[in-house]
């Protein structure tokens, strides 16, 4: 396999068939594969094998030996032959009976093989037969199927996607802009080196770098920035609305309902993008946030991630109060916070006895990853929890060979099948008893902006102590999330067969590239209780360091070498959905 050809292959595409396979297909169609399906034997979590009857021991028809690593059954005449680089009775058979006996199937691995080309070949209909056999096997004990249709989260209706059209104002809008607005002053005399808009320091109000660091990242989160700068949440109108709905009666609730973190964000966006470069004090924001998160309101260093979650929750809650009913987070229609950050995680728990899988979906606004110890040199997988479906080969890359922890390695760990301990037996609906099971996470729906949080702060309640994990984590500037999607994970669970898995078979979101670009990194330096947060922002492919009130330009190397705590990635190409009203 040459590296050149790799780049030409699109992800998940059907490989070109060799001439022998093409001939075979044109002569027999897919009928032989469907017949083969009856001979496919599947064990739960095991792979499919070809056996005429379950207890058959295949032997080479020429030499009679069964203990060969590769035995192939001719699809045309069902005769079994051995194959190896040194001597191939399978190839001899193909030549002898030529034409028409070139295609065979590996009896232990259910893979098609062309004995003339001496290479593994692939066929969509054959793969479909294998998957169907695997599915049927899991459901023979009655009822459940491995790919049963679990109702996807509410409101995950497919919506038409429209092409992104760049917007330019029409003459009427241009006139409106000229009359009703004033041009912002840009940096004088530096037209060629003009610094980006929205770059402005944030004053530390007293141990508030945890807040400043997250705010800097949010101020430059493209969909969020666009939302507020397009006046989608006008703080004047919002406050007016609140005043009207509260009436003129002065009650205690007034103060609380006037509380709107989105309004404070709107004010902050206006200030930060105004062109004024003196550091901004997010005092009003702190005041509002402390009213919302009373339990976190104190003058001591907080956790930036905790603040992030709390803040998004605050924006969401206000919307909930307005609409008067609970808003489901999953599809992100509730508020801008979820529209930008909300994704859906899928959790599969599979019974190791019968293969029955129970699936649940949960919305998430970020992905928290463990930084597990990575001993240098030989890879020592914690064999207790590591397990594979279908004997799949695990990717050994992701820095394990060099001993560095990487973001991709953390994501691999996050989505790998984990054997739940004997003390955590899961009640299997099919077996009707508690069984040992495998759990696997995957991403059902990617958010517009992925926030990765690295669990660097460990709290041990048993020992009543906390500690910080300082280990370096490598993170890429460009990230492809497709291996972690539910569709990919499901497919690999079935041996990477060519088959459309998942409930929304025609859901375009799974075919679109899941490429993300890094735009902000929040780092933490120092000790657990005496540390400092700093954010690095990537604007026009230039990196800036935001250290409270101090903004400076830094090289890429500084960012790569930094101790990442939270990383923000945005979808490379934003796809726009047609709005429901139009």
């Amino acid at each position: 396999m040459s590296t050149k050809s790799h780049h030409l292959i699109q992800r998940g595409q059907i490989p070109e068939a060799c001439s022998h396979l093409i001939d075979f297909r044109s002569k027999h169609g897919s009928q032989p594969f469907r017949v083969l399906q009856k001979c496919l034997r599947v064990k739960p979590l095991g792979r499919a094998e070809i056996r005429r009857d379950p207890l058959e021991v295949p032997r080479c028809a020429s030499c009679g030996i069964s203990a060969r690593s590769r035995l192939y059954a001719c699809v045309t005449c069902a005769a079994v032959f051995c194959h190896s680089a040194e001597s191939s009775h399978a190839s001899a058979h193909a030549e002898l009976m030529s034409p028409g006996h070139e295609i065979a199937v590996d009896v232990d691995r259910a893979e098609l093989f062309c004995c003339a080309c001496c290479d593994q070949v692939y066929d969509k209909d054959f793969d479909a037969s294998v998957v169907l056999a695997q599915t049927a096997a899991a459901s023979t004990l009655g009822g459940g199927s491995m790919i049963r249709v679990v109702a996807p989260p509410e409101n995950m209706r497919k919506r038409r996607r429209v092409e992104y059209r760049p917007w330019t104002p029409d003459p009427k809008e241009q006139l409106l802009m000229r009359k009703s607005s004033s041009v912002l002053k840009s940096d004088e005399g530096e037209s060629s080196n003009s610094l980006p808009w929205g770059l402005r320091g944030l004053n530390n109000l007293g141990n508030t770098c945890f807040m400043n660091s997250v705010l800097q990242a949010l101020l430059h989160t493209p969909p969020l920035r666009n939302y507020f700068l397009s006046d989608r949440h006008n703080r004047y109108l919002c406050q007016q609305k609140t005043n009207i709905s509260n009436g003129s009666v002065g009650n205690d609730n007034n103060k609380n309902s006037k509380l709107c973190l989105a309004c404070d964000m709107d004010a902050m966006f206006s200030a930060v993008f105004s062109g004024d470069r003196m550091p901004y004090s997010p005092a009003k924001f702190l005041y509002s946030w402390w009213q919302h998160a009373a339990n976190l309101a104190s003058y001591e260093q907080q956790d930036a991630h905790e603040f992030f979650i709390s803040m998004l929750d605050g924006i969401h809650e206000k919307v909930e109060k307005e609409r008067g009913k609970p808003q489901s987070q999953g599809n992100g229609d509730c508020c801008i916070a979820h529209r930008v950050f909300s994704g859906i995680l899928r959790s599969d728990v599979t019974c190791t006895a019968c293969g029955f899988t129970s699936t649940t979906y949960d919305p998430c606004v970020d992905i928290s990853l463990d930084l597990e110890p990575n001993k240098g040199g030989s890879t020592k997988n914690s064999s207790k929890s590591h397990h594979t479906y279908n004997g799949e080969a695990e990717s050994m890359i992701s820095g394990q060979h060099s001993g560095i922890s990487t973001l991709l390695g953390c994501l691999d760990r996050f989505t790998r099948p984990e054997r739940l301990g004997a003390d955590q037996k899961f009640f299997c609906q099919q077996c009707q008893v508690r069984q040992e099971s495998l759990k696997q996470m995957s991403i059902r729906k990617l958010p517009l902006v992925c926030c990765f949080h690295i669990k660097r702060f460990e709290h041990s309640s048993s020992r009543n102590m906390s500690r910080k994990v300082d280990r370096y984590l490598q993170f890429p500037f460009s990230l492809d999330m497709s291996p972690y999607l539910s569709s990919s994970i499901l497919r690999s669970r079935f041996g990477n067969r060519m088959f459309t898995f998942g409930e929304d078979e025609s859901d375009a979101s799974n075919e679109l590239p899941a490429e993300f670009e890094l735009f902000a990194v929040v780092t933490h330096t120092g000790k657990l209780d005496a540390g400092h947060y700093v954010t690095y922002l990537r604007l026009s492919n230039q990196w800036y360091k935001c250290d409270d009130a101090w903004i400076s330009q830094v090289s890429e190397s500084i960012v790569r070498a930094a101790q990442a705590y939270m990383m923000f990635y945005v979808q490379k190409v934003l796809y726009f959905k047609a709005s429901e009203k139009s």
Partner: protein
Amino acid sequence: MSVPNDDNPSSHSQLSSHFFEELLDSIVVDVASECHRIARLGLDRNLEEEEEELRLSTQARARVADPNHIGETNGKYVIDIFGQTHPAVANEIFECMNCGRSIMAGRFAPHLEKCMGKGRKARLKTTRSSTATQSRYTRGSPVSTYSPYSNSTSVNRISNGTVIPGEDYGEGAFEDT
């Protein structure tokens, strides 16, 4: 390979090594077959890109660790990207939105904490001062039981009218917060 008939040890070790080879072969073909499929279907990860990112990160760390590297100055006491300098403690002055007082930015959070009555320290401070006030009164007679942080036990103890030497009492009542 023919199966040896005799019982001698060398043929046993031959047999066992033969079986081992077969098993090993089988495992190798397992992996090869799976990887072949992954590669042909274009499902493998772009290893070149990943290795490139790793290389860049290693390079970056080496550069930064080099004492001669000037990439990042300690921004706190230096001119920022706009040519401005700032004091270590932010000195912008604005009005507190809770009480209306003029506060310096760098001291806003601790002020707001007390102003809003939030935070552990704020509560403890108020409590101690109110205890001091009450103990002065309880020496003489039963007294009004107003306490901003009603702790039912302590209220009951006060309202019983028990005459208690102020200092001892003050210690016990507000320990739990």
